[in-house]
């Protein structure tokens, strides 16, 4: 087993353990019933997405500062994983909202800003695809990643800045019973490990893609140079 396979196996096992805590350990919510169990993964996925986008931000800043290809690859990997976790957050939230609010979607500040977050990082990946590979795509994406991160605090504080329908921060406000809190913290830790493993795998893919591209491009460049010299 390679390092990445070990990591994947470990994160799958951790997610199963988290599932055990969510379904067997945590008590059923008195008002919402079993639907409330969505909360554990929904909030954990959102936090993992914030973390991924923070990596995109840092990778972008380091790239613009030092022109470090590894920082750019890390940002690339984290953007994709962050987008996946934002999708999970949105979809799980909608599944929860249907029985609780009676509708899948409402133009609430938190929902809207999260949707905007998704669009921003989808745009980030579009820039990567459409710009010239290499320096241009890395630079442009870094700029988009830095500007896009402005939306992360907006999403986070939207529930306190505006009067929203979305529930406020229950974890930080100490509003969870102890068993729910334990289940949440374990799910969050497992989700963060999963996100880190996904970024590591994606980083490896990006690294191999870059290497393959260099292998193809380098001889052509050398040939053209030789032709120019003649």
């Amino acid at each position: 087993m390679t390092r990445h396979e070990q990591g994947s196996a470990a994160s799958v096992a951790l997610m199963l353990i988290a599932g055990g805590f969510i379904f067997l350990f945590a008590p059923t919510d008195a008002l919402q019933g079993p639907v409330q169990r969505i909360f554990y993964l929904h909030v954990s996925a959102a936090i993992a997405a914030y973390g991924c986008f923070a990596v995109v931000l840092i990778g972008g800043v380091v790239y613009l500062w030092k022109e470090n290809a590894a920082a750019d690859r890390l940002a690339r990997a984290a953007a994709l994983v962050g987008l996946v976790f934002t999708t999970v957050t949105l979809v799980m939230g909608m599944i929860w909202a249907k029985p609780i609010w009676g509708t899948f979607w409402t133009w609430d500040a938190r929902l809207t800003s999260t949707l905007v977050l998704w669009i921003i990082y989808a745009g980030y990946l579009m820039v990567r695809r459409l710009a010239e590979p290499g320096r241009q795509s890395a630079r442009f994406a870094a700029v988009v990643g830095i500007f896009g991160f402005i939306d992360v605090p907006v999403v986070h504080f939207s529930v306190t800045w505006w009067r929203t329908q979305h529930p406020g921060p229950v974890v930080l406000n100490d509003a969870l019973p102890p068993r729910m809190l334990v289940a949440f913290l374990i799910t969050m830790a497992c989700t963060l490990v999963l996100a880190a493993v996904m970024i590591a795998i994606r980083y490896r893919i990006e690294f191999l893609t870059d290497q393959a591209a260099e292998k193809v491009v380098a001889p052509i460049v050398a040939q053209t140079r030789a032709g120019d010299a003649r």
Partner: protein
Amino acid sequence: MRSITIALAVARKDLASEWRTREIVPALAQFVVLALVIANFGFQFDSRNAPAIAPGVLWMALVFAGLVAFGRAFAAEREQASLEAMLMTPAMPAAIFAGKALAAGLLLVICEAVLLPALALFFAVPLTFDEVSAVLLATVGMAVLGCLFAAMVAQVRARELLLPLLTLPLWIPFVVVGGQAVQSAMGGGGTATGSANGLLLDLDILFVVLTSLAARFVLDD
């Protein structure tokens, strides 16, 4: 000081070329009036729902007119390959960027000078100082952000597709705050215009600083 002179020279060049060709402004003016016509049919407008609908129509028209204006600002440079020539001079990329943003922003202001009276005329809503100030303040931030991404997409494939995808999400704060200000100015409720204008000014300062820092990485290749 030198940077300001350069920025003004670039802006003057862009405005002079627009004055000679008269390409963007007449097209945009027609576009915003057309947007009002389409909105009239789309919303089943009458005198009662005007204060609720008109602000939305205003921002929709403004946002899409802005996309066209800022996209053109750099597309023209690309067609002539004149941006490279400008960047070869010792001028700071941030100064060139500021000049382009200033000119494109002014073109959008001219387009607003058509849009706002037309909106007041056709939708029978008041044209107030509060509304104009909110729109003008939003234009500053929209211009710098729009021009930053326009400069970026001018250098990539499928630029017409990418510009709205990158720009619109970051314009949302201006539409949210400006939208509320215009709504209250038109008598449709919402927050007080004074605090909204303060917030718009804060956003303008934030994005002017951020875009001038980022301009170097987008332009200088």
